[in-house]
């Protein structure tokens, strides 16, 4: 009871004293845990390597410049592959994620007891496995190449797109759906007129955002053999060709910047 009457008048405090003590002890426990963890990590670190690292950074840094600009000519094709992996993977994911989202949303699912849990399971399993792991699996199943990359990106993106989309579907204004239903519309028409226009901005935003993320993710897929610029990065690293690595990293940064600009522009236009 924060409000208490005293001789000088009522006194108000934000919390009861019991609650205040509980909060203080939680902070104390947190601090103690942090110190304990610090100790464990410190004990298991080889400090020689850590103290040595500035010298190593300087060494690698000096080898990385000047960038081997001539190598750029060999990178356009793998970069184009990378962009294609991201784009096709995103499109494939959208095609699969939209129905999953409608099955998972509480207000559109045909059965909350059977279908919804299945849809949620699809979403969770797709989201919990990183696209690099999907790519590892797929490369061993269908061999190295761009196709494995596309499918890896798609599988990872289904969960992301479906989750955000079904949340958007659950947040729609119900009265618009009611109005369309009251006019005598069938199930499909209620979706097309009552729901789709409401989720369109969210959908466009999610799709472009995921494409933007996928550009970044697909740059590393090559490391496990799933095609794209990562393959080049891998081989340059293997032969310690640091000037080539610099060019690759700069190209990736440039591509990501462009994709981010595209996605921001599209989202701005649609919403």
């Amino acid at each position: 009871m924060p409000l208490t009457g005293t001789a000088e008048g009522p006194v108000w405090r934000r919390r009861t004293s019991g609650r205040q003590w509980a909060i203080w002890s939680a902070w104390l426990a947190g601090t103690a845990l942090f110190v304990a963890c610090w100790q464990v990590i410190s004990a298991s670190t080889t400090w020689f390597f850590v103290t040595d690292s500035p010298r190593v950074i300087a060494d690698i840094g000096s080898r990385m410049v000047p960038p081997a600009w001539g190598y750029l000519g060999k990178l356009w094709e793998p970069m184009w592959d990378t962009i294609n992996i991201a784009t096709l993977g995103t499109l494939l994911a959208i095609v699969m994620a939209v129905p999953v989202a409608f099955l998972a949303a509480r207000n559109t699912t045909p059965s909350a007891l059977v279908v919804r849990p299945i849809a949620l399971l699809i979403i969770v399993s797709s989201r919990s496995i990183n696209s690099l792991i999907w790519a590892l699996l797929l490369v061993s199943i269908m061999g190295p190449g761009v196709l494995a990359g596309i499918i890896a990106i798609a599988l990872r993106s289904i969960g992301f797109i479906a989750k955000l989309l079904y949340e958007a579907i659950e947040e729609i204004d119900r009265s618009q759906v009611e109005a369309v239903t009251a006019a005598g519309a069938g199930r499909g028409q209620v979706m097309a007129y009552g729901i789709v226009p409401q989720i369109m901005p969210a959908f466009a935003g999610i799709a472009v955002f995921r494409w933007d993320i996928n550009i970044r993710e697909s740059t590393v897929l090559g490391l496990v053999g799933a095609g794209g610029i990562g393959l080049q990065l891998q081989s340059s690293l293997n032969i310690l060709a640091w000037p080539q690595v610099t060019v690759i990293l700069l190209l990736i940064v440039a591509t990501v910047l462009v994709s981010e600009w595209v996605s921001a522009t599209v989202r701005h236009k649609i919403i």
Partner: protein
Amino acid sequence: MLVLEGLTKRYKTGDLALDHVDLEVPKGQVLALIGPSGAGKSTLIRCINRLVEPTEGKVVLNGETISRLGSGGLRRARRRMGMIFQEYALVERLSVMENVLSGRLGYVGFWQSWFRRFPPKDIENAYRLLERVGLEQFYDKRADELSGGQRQRVGIARALIQDPELLLVDEPTASLDPKTSRQIMRLIRELCAERGLAAIINIHDVALAQQFVERIVGLRQGKMVYDGPPDGLTPEVLTEIYGEEDWQATRKKGGEERAADAIVEDDERLAGAL
């Protein structure tokens, strides 16, 4: 034309929203449904077109028992009942024309509506209705660009293009200012008279109801406690419907035409009282 027999709705939470309501609405009659918030007004009109499934009782429209229809039959029955909403319930991101045409969804197939290939007659009708409600130059605007009164006019056009026999109107003026409220009520009234439509209008504003309708039904806790002419709303009756309050300022005083500022003043007093 519309008959409700022992209409009862008990929500899953156990709340009894409607308690054996019997009501008969003849063709062309405009009726206002008044009562405090939570009295079951919205539930009542939603039970008629089964946006809410009634628990018990019958809804009969022109001899057809709506409460027993399957989904196809219900779709056809809903076409004959236009609905107008408090917050307009327009599809905000679609154009005015698309919103009006969405009133025809019960008549066209899915792909026809998906590709917006409505029959030319519907489009002509939509345009004529927009003209009637004074929005013909707005047909290409998006619904969310309109003001409250304009949106409600689109809502009215959408209900009318269904070619209904009955209008279900849920708090049409609750989001509008007093002047627009009166214009909207007058428009609904005129359109009902032009087309011989019956209407059930849920409304909070007692003075406004008295000004525009020929019959008033009072609902309290799901039960009908008043059914009669607007003039019969004495302070005793209003107390029966809403509970104890000073009702002198709320009731319609005498003549049909009153100065607009007096009405506004009245509204403010009512807003203060409720």
